[in-house]
Structure formats: structure tokens, C-alpha cells
């Protein structure tokens, strides 16, 4: 299935892209699985999505936990802990 992945702030700079549409292999149906899928790309992705990295996730613009499910057409955003206010 296809999802839209977005990266913000330091994560966007680290990966050198604001995001992309990606085709996911079967079995990648949760945020946690998508994270390991991205980590598996190696290079900057390996560090950005390591277990130690503080990465927050929003699915369809709603903050979620790693166990949250994703489905075709979802907008999945990854970003560092927020620092507004």
C-alpha cells in the first residue's frame, strides 16, 4: 500500500527531504513497523529512526503512539519533540 510520509524540522534536515509517497511492503501496518522499515534504508535513516532517537509521529495530523495502525492513503508525519510556545 501507498502512504505519504512527511518529515519536519531537524528530521527533515537530517534526511534532506520534506517527505515522499512510499509503497510499503505487506506487513508494514503500524507506525512502529514503518519506523523500522525506514531505518532499514540505512544512511541518515538508520540514525534518524534508531531506537534512541526521540521521534514523534502523527497519523493524518493526529499525534499517535508507535502501536497505531496505518492504512493506504494515510499521511504519516515524523518529527522531533515539539518546542513551540
Amino acid at each position: 500500500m501507498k502512504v505519504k510520509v512527511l518529515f519536519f524540522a531537524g528530521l527533515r534536515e537530517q534526511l534532506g527531504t520534506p517527505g515522499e509517497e512510499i509503497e510499503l511492503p505487506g506487513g508494514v501496518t503500524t507506525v512502529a513497523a514503518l519506523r523500522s522499515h525506514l531505518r532499514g534504508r540505512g544512511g541518515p535513516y538508520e540514525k534518524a529512526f534508531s531506537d534512541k532517537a526521540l521521534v514523534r509521529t502523527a497519523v493524518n495530523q493526529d499525534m499517535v503512539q508507535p502501536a497505531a495502525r496505518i492504512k493506504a492513503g494515510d499521511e504519516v508525519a515524523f518529527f522531533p519533540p515539539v518546542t513551540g510556545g
Partner: protein
Amino acid sequence: MKISVQAEDFDLGAEVRKISGEKTVGAVASFVGVVREVPMTLEHYPGMTEAAIRKIVDEAAARWKVTDCSVIHRYGALQPGDQIVLVAVASAHRGDAFAACEFVMDYLKTQAPFWKKEHRAEGAQWVEARAADDQAAERWQDGSRKKAG
């Protein structure tokens, strides 16, 4: 209820007047965040930002008697002394106004998708989230507000 994510500056007095019109309003509590000594750029996640603030405001209105409120958050390049954020809450009495205003600010700090990048002489750097901000938001979760640490 007004929620605005904007590049432009805002006028606290004008915003307070806009939410004070109702005859039942007896108190308006407001907070304005200001850039300290370092110039910065604020990035956000258009679409989600407004929705996240809306959720926080709705939660405040469910917990306290809120007659009206205004939340404005700026993005883009900001200089020391510039205003960043405004939260103003109108209510019948000050207790609700103070509590709701502080609640919205505390949650905004941990839930609204904004990121600050500071531009120092030695280079630009993303600001790291503070554990104290998480703790400030968490103290509202058991229903009775604890004193800030």
C-alpha cells in the same frame, strides 16, 4: 473561539477586547510569550497545528467555564523582543480564566507541532524539548492541578 497560526504580529489589547464583549465575562487572563535574546525561526506543520490547538482549547472548555478565548501562534523569522504566542481566556470569574489559560499554554508546549531553530553566532541549532515542559503538561492529568516544580 479564535485560533490563528500566522506570520504577522498581534495586539494583545485588541484580542482581549474581542473576547470581553459578553456581559457574563468578569475576567480575562492572558499570556504572551516573547523571544529572549536569540533570533529564531519557527517552523510548524500546517493543518495539524490548527487542529492540535483546537483540541487543546476544546479540552480547556470542557474542564473550566470558558466564555471565549483567543490563541495566536506565530511562525517564521522572529527577533529578540518579538511576541511569539498569545493565549487569552475570558470567563465569569478569574479562577477559571487563570487555570484555562495556563492549561492551554502548558499543552501547547508539548502537543502543538512547532519547532524553534535558534540562530546564534556559532551557527543555527534546533531547540531541544525540555523535560520541564512535559512535566508542566502532565501535572494536569490527575484532575487536581499540582504546583509547578
